[in-house]
């Protein structure tokens, strides 16, 4: 496993100015290995989503650097950043943000289109448990199913890194566990590096690597040696 696949050094991010100035990230340093399941843990306002957005190239840091596979993110212009996201990243949000008038398969195709060598969609639909629902529109699906589509859309292009921002935040316990199992399965089957933002402490147990944030700084950065399967999680 490439131990320094993703390196984050001295990352800082401030919002607002003057009285409303707020330092969301105050110097973040950690690294993620290739294929690793990394969880960014912390309460609301700890800066974990901001960190994820900067990693995803949809937000930028005030200082510090991110090096992915030897490439510095800060050196990339907007066009190159888009290309970076297109080639290397998959995104799963708390809200599924599916295109309402495209069916399940077509929504997944929006991700597949971005890759020259996408995964086989039918096989992926089977893995996602959506094969029977492939012609349904998003509004005909449950929240969990919609999130599965959103995961499918993110991984169909077989990204190097899958960024998940509170993917279970809007789901119930059972559905959340199903989604976590799916992400685990994807991580294991396709070998993508997964970085997941969550405030759910229980999810840390299924991760290889746990980074805990509070008030914009890393409180702990540990490798989980007693990793359990997602289906065993309880909260």
């Amino acid at each position, binding site marked *: 496993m490439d131990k320094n696949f993703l390196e984050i050094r001295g990352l800082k991010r401030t919002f607002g100015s003057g009285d409303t100035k707020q330092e969301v990230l105050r110097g973040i340093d950690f690294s993620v290995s290739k294929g690793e399941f990394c969880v960014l843990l912390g309460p609301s306002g700890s800066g974990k989503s901001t960190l994820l957005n900067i990693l995803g190239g949809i937000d930028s840091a005030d200082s510090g650097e991110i090096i992915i596979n030897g490439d510095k993110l800060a050196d990339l212009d907007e066009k190159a950043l888009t290309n970076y996201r297109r080639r290397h990243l*998959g995104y799963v*949000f708390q809200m599924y943000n599916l295109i309402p008038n495209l069916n399940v398969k077509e929504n997944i195709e929006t991700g597949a289109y*971005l*890759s020259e060598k996408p995964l086989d969609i039918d096989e992926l639909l089977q893995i996602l448990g959506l094969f029977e629902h492939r012609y349904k529109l998003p509004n005909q699906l449950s929240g969990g199913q919609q999130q599965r589509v959103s995961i499918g859309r993110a991984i169909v292009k077989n990204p190097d890194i899958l960024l998940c921002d509170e993917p279970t935040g809007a789901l119930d316990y059972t559905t959340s566990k199903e989604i976590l199992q799916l992400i685990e399965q994807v991580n294991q089957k396709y070998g993508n590096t997964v970085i997941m933002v969550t405030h759910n402490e229980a999810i840390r147990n299924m991760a290889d690597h746990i980074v805990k944030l509070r008030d914009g700084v890393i409180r702990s950065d540990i490798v989980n040696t007693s990793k359990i399967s997602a289906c065993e999680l309880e909260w």
Partner: protein
Amino acid sequence: MNYGKRPRNPLSKRLWKDIVRDWKRYIMIFLMLVVTIGFVSGMYVANNSMMTTIENNKDLLKLEDGNFEVSETLDAPAVKAIESGEKADVVSVFKQRAYKEAESEIKESVDEAVREKVEEQVRTAIHNKVESEVDKQLAPLAANGGAVPEDMRQKAIDDAFDAAIESSFDDAVSEAFEEAVISDEYKDTLADVTEKAKKEIDKKINEEYGELSDRFELDDDSFKSVPVRLYPLFCHECDESIGQQSTGRIRIYAERNEVDLYDLLDGRAPENENEIIIDRMHADNAQIEIGDTLKVGTTEFTVTGFAAFVDYSTLYENNNDTMFDALTFDVGMTTNDGFDRIKGNTHYKYAFVYNEKPKDTYEEKTFSDNFLKALITQTAVADSEPEITDYIPCYANHAVTFAPNDMGSDKSMGGVLLYILTAVLAFVFAVTISSALEKESTVIGTLRSLGYTKGELIRYYMSAPMIVIFVSAIVGNILGYTVFKKIVVAMYYNSYSLPTYKTIWTPDAFVRTTIVPIILMFVINLAIITRTLKLSPLRFLRRDLKNVKRSKAVRLPRWSFLKRFRLRVFIQNLPNYAMLFVGICFIMLLLSMAVGMPSTLKFYQDSVTDMMFANEQVILTSTEDKDGNEITTNTKGAEKFSIGSLDLRTDSFTEEVSVYGINKSSNYIKLDDELFGNADRDMTLVYISKAYSEKYNVHEGDTITLSEQYEHKDYTWKVYGVYDYSAGVAVFMPNDTFNEVFDRDEKDFSGYMSDESVTDIDEEYIAARLTSDDITKLARQLDHSMGSYMLYFQYVCVIVACIIIYLLTKIIIEKNEVSIAMTKILGYTDKEIASLYLITTGVVVLISELAALVIGYKTMEFFWKTIMMKLGGWFDFVMLPSGFVKEFLLVFAAYVIIAAIDFVRIKRVPKTLALKNVE
């Protein structure tokens, strides 16, 4: 791990789904575009096709270059002489004729005088001889002392004298006369008298020719002969009737084969002496059918067809008429035999065609002027001495030129209409796109996060409007070339006697109705989409698309809850309501045109009498009658004035400006005494009319330059003041100055102006009478050309209003669907919810309408000026209070219709929407 194939862009699939999902919106925009593009395209195509046909028909149907009418038919030598285009030597011919006539008269009178003298001499000689013989006979008697009384002697002499006269006077006189006429004295006397007479003749002819020459510039050095071909175009002018019902007057021509041909629109040409074809337009107006028996004077004909004569595209009976009259004036054609059946009132018209066509209008005018000189001189020297009663060069023939000129002005109006409507459509698109981007914010954010480029998304969001505009342009153009073209052509056919036209490809229509709207839509959409897609994916994910953020909620007054709710709806939808306001302004602008134009024209026509400085202006053909006396009038208040016209040339238009010469004592136009002074000035001082000042933004102290219409001669004058006269674009100056400037005689004038009608001047000396009818000609022309459109246009405006309000309120309701669903869950009834949204929109519509009434009116005033700049004349845009009320009600009616639709829309919002959309 198995890999699949890269799929086709799923956004392309989505594009069609988007269009289908939002079909109501797209269909509205599509329909609006199709109708606009279709109508304007139809107008351009109809206009261009018809104008091209008219232009082509000039050659195809051998349109004359002009015509003239003479008092009697021309003989062959006269025709030949006129066709040569050469000026006749009028002076020589007239002198020879006069000399010849004078010589015989002189000889007669000299002989008469000689005879009288001879008779007197013979009589005296006889008397002397008789007296001597009587005295001789009485001498013996006296010698014998017998005195003979004197009375006896005298009686004897008288008796002898009478006897002698009776027996030998005539022979003696004849003998003496013969001797006298061979005498040198007789010859000298005859030569003297002839010489004197010739001198008198020369003087008189030179004087008369001088006047004629001055008037028609016959001795102009620049004269060049203009050879022409003449074609007799004799006609009868008679009353026309069908059965007992009069249908006006008809001018009937014999068969036309060589010049001024016709386009047979229906039926067939006359084949025998009992058949006739007539003008199609008049037939339509007078409801004459093929097969009807038409009574022409006292002769009956069967109508066999309807035609459009190339020299009568507009039915002007006389070229001096201010307006054409297709209701009571008709033109017809029979066979030559049929023509001969008609009795009386024959007009000896001849059409002429130049052997070499003039290159431009300047040359055409020069040709015409030169030909007129040839015509005047050649008819003057013709043996039958025909009198010219009419002369109209083609370029000045209203029957030929009015229709194309009028259609030209329609085109400029159509252009304005298209630009206004295109702006409205562009604006609707802008709102729609803006709203779509807002609605799709998180999807856009997600797609951008996944790696979709801005270009891909711009292309995607541009596709729908571009497809709609593209399809609309294609369908609009197809409809333009088919349906709408026919509608516009029908309007033209309803006014003019136009030929069968051939639809032609009109690049102008394509550019204006397809290329321009497509470019406009492309640019506006690209600008809006690019501007929004510049934002980072994160801002899309956070639905943070506004550049200005409101830090605090607006504090509302302590109103009732519902009122405050409505106010919140208003504040939340402020941008949309702003758009709605702009939309209503556009509609009001269109309505201002549709409602205001007819009222403006009506107002102008109604009030023109008040604007005129005198009710009548009589323009004379000559200021002197046949006897050389000045033509005067006893009409109360009539006063002399001069008038001429010059061109005011701008980049876009040439305005015909009336130039008046006014007397110092005028009661109608009072110019400052300063102008009448004899002071030497660098520049002539003039007044300009208020219309001139307003139209061309010229004020006191400015200089103006006007040009002769067909000559390269300019006049530059200084504006002394603005005269309060709004009925026309005019210049006023003292009559003396007028005569000096235009190189006329010192006391010259053009005619009389008077409030009372001038009735005591022989009509033969009157060239034209300008009354309020003439001043309102422009208004009537506009009314005629566009008046009928305007009512339809008002309906179109209501439809456009419905579409715009529909599109904008749809956005507002869609934006609030979740809130609507939520209030339903809370227990609000549909009516209550509708009142929250619809009353807010209703109030916005009401307030917008009031503001838009003013804005629309003011903008239309500006547009009106732009339109008037391209037309001759000037008058202000006028909107009556009832017009404002009508505009208001029409737009409000549109809102009521849409409010009903919106109510149904609100009713259909499902409650589940609030539950599913948990964002």
